[in-house]
């Protein structure tokens, strides 16, 4: 009877959560984007399927079995899975809040949400690659049974990782700096699992392939029909599930009882006074970053990415032999922060959009301030890039070309989001990207990411000696025209103001 009651409650809670996702304000407001989202997901699944088939066939005749390579590189999949899961920011502790006062045990609720994570369709995404790959590679050696066991084991790995991710996420929610912990661990393991260079040899000596070999041994036991690996996986899943129950239960009280620091130090920031009204909006931009948790995290993440990419190019030989990748990463160092901040342009301002709209051309001044602020931030990658320039790995022309192109071409593309964004971001909530990124934002991000790559590639092939010069010239034109295109963005924003303001208001408390 009790089990039946739990099952009823479980289904009831799941049904309510499913409805919540279906009726999310983001989809209610924008049906076209919802369908575009499905199309986007279908594209990725088809892409993984295609990749699985192609790679499965290509590895059929290699000196090493294809599935051994995939199995040995398991850590790479887990690291990629972590990156994809970063989009999911809600933890069970946050989900429970809505149900906390209902006559349902909190532990049961957390258990329900943890179970939902295990059974989530998110855990089968990688199977779109692994199933066709395995189907081509495995039955020949291990039969269909072996194939099914292999696929099930992979699913179990991702199910366990869904629970591990929740622990990372809870730590990240507690303090953003905790992000560095999983990132460092995964990056280290990924590097060890994939690369066999002077650095890994320095650390591991002759035993450089230890991780690959360990994973290989593990998967071979699974394919040989040993039950022990499955028992281990089952035990790990139960242990992490129980650990999560405790962690999430503790986190609930932090979520509910959290009191924000109420005293602040007010700084004049007189350096911006010389810029007049734009200066006032620059101060607003800086204060928004300093005082709003979500924006602050976004900014820190952008700067960290900017620094990591810059340092990777400057201080490691990773891209030394690939001129195109080196040039592209140089470009991306300049774009990454703007990409992260501007793709949500106007979403933070949705919280006080009525106030902005009550003042003449204040949105235009705000847009200008955002542009100038992002331009100022270019000083960071520019300084780091002086290192490879001094080392002779790169030229100052390349660095300046990328910087100008980012400022004059990529940023105007990103600013288009200011016209279309109409979902308010809660400035201090911990749920971030999952609730915010609409498909238009993803598409514009992708364009901002890949368009420079295509242009650079074309220039490097067609006019290799002048590519930096042309990039720079295109950028200078965009920068010189900034009053025009910013005014154009503003005019189009004003033309859509009723739709946008309605969206900002509806999503303000969603």
């Amino acid at each position: 009877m009790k089990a039946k009651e739990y099952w009823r409650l479980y289904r009831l809670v799941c049904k309510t959560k499913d409805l919540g996702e279906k009726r999310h304000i983001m989809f209610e407001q924008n049906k076209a984007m919802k369908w575009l989202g499905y199309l986007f997901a279908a594209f990725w699944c088809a892409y993984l399927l295609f990749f699985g088939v192609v790679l499965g066939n290509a590895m059929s005749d290699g000196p090493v079995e294809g599935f051994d390579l995939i199995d040995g590189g398991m850590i790479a999949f887990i690291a990629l899975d972590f990156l994809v899961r970063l989009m999911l920011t809600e933890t069970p502790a946050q989900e429970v809040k809505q149900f906390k006062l209902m006559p349902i045990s909190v532990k049961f609720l957390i258990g329900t949400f943890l179970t939902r994570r295990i059974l989530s369709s998110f855990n089968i995404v990688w199977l779109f690659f692994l199933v066709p790959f395995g189907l081509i590679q495995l039955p020949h050696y291990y039969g269909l049974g072996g194939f099914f066991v292999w696929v099930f084991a992979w699913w179990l790995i991702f199910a366990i990782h869904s629970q591990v991710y929740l622990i990372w996420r809870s730590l990240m929610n507690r303090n953003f700096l905790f992000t560095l912990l999983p990132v460092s661990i995964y990056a280290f393991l990924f590097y060890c699992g994939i690369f066999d260079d002077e650095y890994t040899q320095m650390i591991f000596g002759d035993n450089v392939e230890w991780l690959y070999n360990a994973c290989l041994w593990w998967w071979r036991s699974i394919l040989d029909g040993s039950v022990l690996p499955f028992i281990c996986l089952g035990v790990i899943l139960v242990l992490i599930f129980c650990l999560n129950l405790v962690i999430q239960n503790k986190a609930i009280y932090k979520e509910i009882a959290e009191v924000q620091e109420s005293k602040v130090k007010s700084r004049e920031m007189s350096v911006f006074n010389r810029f007049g009204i734009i200066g006032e909006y620059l101060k607003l931009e800086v204060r928004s970053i300093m005082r709003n948790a979500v924006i602050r995290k976004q900014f820190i993440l952008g700067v960290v990415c900017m620094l990591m990419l810059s340092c990777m190019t400057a201080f490691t030989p990773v891209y030394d032999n690939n001129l195109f990748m080196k040039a592209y990463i140089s470009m991306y160092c300049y774009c990454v922060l703007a990409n992260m901040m501007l793709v949500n342009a106007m979403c933070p301002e949705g919280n006080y959009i009525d106030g902005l709209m009550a003042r003449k051309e204040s949105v235009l001044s705000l847009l200008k301030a955002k542009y100038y602020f992002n331009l100022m931030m270019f000083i960071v990658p520019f300084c780091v890039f002086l290192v490879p320039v001094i080392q002779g790995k790169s030229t100052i022309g390349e660095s300046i070309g990328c910087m100008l192109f980012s400022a004059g071409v990529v940023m105007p593309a990103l600013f288009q989001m200011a016209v279309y964004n109409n979902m308010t971001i809660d400035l201090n909530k911990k749920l971030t990207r999952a609730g915010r990124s609409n498909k238009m934002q993803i598409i514009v991000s992708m364009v901002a990411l890949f368009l420079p790559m295509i242009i650079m590639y074309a220039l490097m092939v067609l006019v290799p000696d002048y590519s930096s010069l042309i990039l720079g010239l295109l950028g200078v034109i965009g920068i010189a025209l900034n009053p025009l295109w910013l005014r154009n963005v503003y005019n189009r924003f004003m033309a859509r103001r009723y739709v946008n303001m309605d969206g900002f208001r509806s999503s303000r408390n969603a």
Partner: protein
Amino acid sequence: MTLTLSNIKKYFGEKLALDIEQYTVNDGEIIGLVGNNGAGKTTMFRAILDLIKPEEGAVSIDGINPAESEDWKEITGAYVDSGFLIDYLTPEEYFDFIAKVSNISKEELDERLKPFAGFMNGEVLGQNTLIRNLSMGNKQKVGIIAAMITRPKLLILDEPFNFLDPTSQLAMKSVIENYNKETGAIVLVSSHNLTHTIDICTRVTLLEHGKILMDYDKETHKDVMKEIEDYFVGQAPVTQE
């Protein structure tokens, strides 16, 4: 300075939320907008402030249609809800920001804030607290003061007595009256508090289901309170013993 609404119709889905044929407000008037929940008071304010687009009709603020030009913003101040506040600033920073974007010097701002000292009651300035961490009442005060410091010719306040303690409500009344006397501005106030509204207003407009049902000048209608009260009593559901 005149505010005019002509043939305004605003629908939310099928529902006609606002239906005003002709409504004109002249210099120096304090208008009290009363009505039950969902009567269309906030919708009317939002239509005036160009925050929503009416399906039909036009608004004119001193001859400017807000849907066509932004010049009206220089002569209008408003506080409708906390969506007007940049809540990650301290009140001082917020007032300073408003002043600077409105070309008001620091000295002038300090001067303009002085009359609000009693209204703020020592709980708003000098607290080193972000607006979002203030109580609802104090947030309301920040929004109202911010709407007034630019000395607009048209001041719109939606439910200004909400969240305020009794002392602050009385202070709010004098703030509005004094502002109107000093500047001769049009003040539009909506409220559920009939006593306060009728006390301070020169004209009372009753809005129900988006339509103007009564529009009384207090000079000519001495018994506005009774007529309005009678209307609401008539609307109240009768409970059976």
